[in-house]
């Protein structure tokens, strides 16, 4: 009775119910794998992110001063350069091994895959996600630089993740450490498939790997190319733990990502030049499906 009589209480109860209902619908509809932002959100994210960039930049400059000038003027820089070169060379070796194993001749004969070229866009990490539940990083490149949603992101060490949220000048990357990011992986040595999923801040796990697969510690995991997001052969990480239960048909494999996320400063976005063509193909397929559905509906209507 008090609720009906007291205007404030009634107003509060109504507002609480409305906000809760809208929030519940929002939770149910929210996708953890992709988010398309509205124009309003674009403008606001683009307004806040430059401040994040400046803060990061100031910190980097201060850190750089201490690292490079005070501690050791030239050796530190050389070390960073050499490390980058070693990473690049390791990545190249990895790529060559993959090329050897790939049956290119048959692929060309069957015209399997289109060999879509990737445009490489260099970006700087400007911030991390505000919630520790998500392993998401923000970079200073967006739609205006040619970045597309779901573009894969790599470094010279290996796979970082894919573009989850995008504005005109900034983008959020869902890293391989996040449990919403699932990568179809391949154990390079034994060619065993599995799904690599983020687990915590340092490790990922590879699920659905058959018990029969003779995986050993230190095996290299690469992307399989399935799933239409990541190209084949990108270094994901190495096997650091294997769990085989006394029951079941699979084994749990723990992966240490190739990328050191604690020291991540620059990344490379692989933006497929064939994105528009792929999009048109998907749309054409969708239209065909819709036409077929409409036709079957009209046929069933006539049958009655």
């Amino acid at each position, binding site marked *: 009775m008090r609720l009906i009589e007291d205007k404030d209480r009634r107003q509060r109860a109504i507002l609480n119910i409305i906000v*809760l209902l809208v929030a519940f619908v929002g939770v149910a509809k*929210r996708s953890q794998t992709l988010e398309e932002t509205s124009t309003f959100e674009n403008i606001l994210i683009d307004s806040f992110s430059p401040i994040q*960039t400046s803060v990061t930049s100031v910190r980097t400059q201060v850190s750089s001063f201490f690292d490079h000038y005070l501690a050791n003027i030239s050796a530190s820089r050389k070390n960073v350069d050499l490390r980058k070169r070693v990473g690049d060379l390791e990545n190249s070796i990895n790529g060559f091994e993959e090329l050897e194993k790939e049956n290119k001749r048959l692929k060309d004969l069957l015209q399997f895959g289109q060999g879509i070229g990737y445009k490489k866009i260099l970006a700087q990490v400007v911030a991390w996600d*505000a919630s520790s539940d998500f392993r998401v990083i923000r970079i200073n490149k967006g739609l205006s630089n040619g970045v597309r949603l779901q573009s894969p992101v790599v470094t010279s060490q290996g796979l970082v993740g894919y573009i989850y949220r995008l504005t005109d000048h900034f983008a959020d990357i869902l890293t391989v450490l996040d449990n919403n990011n699932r990568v179809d992986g391949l154990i390079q040595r034994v060619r065993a498939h599995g799904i690599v999923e983020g687990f915590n801040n340092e490790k990922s796990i590879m699920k659905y790997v058959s018990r029969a697969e003779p995986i050993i510690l230190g095996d290299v995991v690469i992307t399989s190319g399935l799933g239409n997001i990541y190209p084949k052969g990108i270094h994901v990480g190495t096997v650091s733990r294997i769990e085989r239960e006394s029951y079941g048909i699979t084994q749990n494999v723990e992966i240490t990502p190739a990328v050191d996320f604690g020291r991540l400063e620059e990344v490379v976005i692989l933006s497929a030049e064939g994105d528009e063509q792929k999009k048109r193909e998907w749309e054409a397929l969708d239209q065909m499906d819709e036409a077929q559905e409409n036709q079957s509906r009209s046929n069933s209507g006539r049958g009655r």
Partner: protein
Amino acid sequence: MKGDWLKLIRPLGITLLILIVLEIFSTALVPMLGLTKYRIPFNILIILYLGFKLETPYTSLLIFVLQYTHSFFSIEGWEMGTIAGVIICIVISYLKDLLHLSSSIITIFITQVFQFLWFVIVSVLLYLKEDNFSYIVEKFWRFLPESIAISLLAPFFFGILDVIWRTETDRSLGESV
């Protein structure tokens, strides 16, 4: 003040500015210093303050605005935090006569208790959506240090927010304005 939403706009604007500055500090500076595992959820701290101190029917809308601003810095979105915040404010409104933030120790303790309730609500929602219990266990170990940090900061931040929202330490907004 109780039902006058116009008087809420100014303090809300200042609170949003503080939240944005703290989010930038938390997302751009702290992780770059090597602390990538933990993040201080300042949005929870502000929402708890609104629940403890504010006497207005628009609390749920204020929570929504704060969470929506938070969502620009996190892919978490505004929804789960809004649900947790509104439920907690409803609980607080029933316990208001028992809750007196009269000293720093009590403020720290009560903030910690309600953060635990926040964790429970969000974990239930996450479990219903993801069906992954091990993730919640892993989240709990991150929640402990983060929530303790927030609780320790609470007396200081509540003091600042008291000035912004013009409330006295142990009274609800509306009566003193």
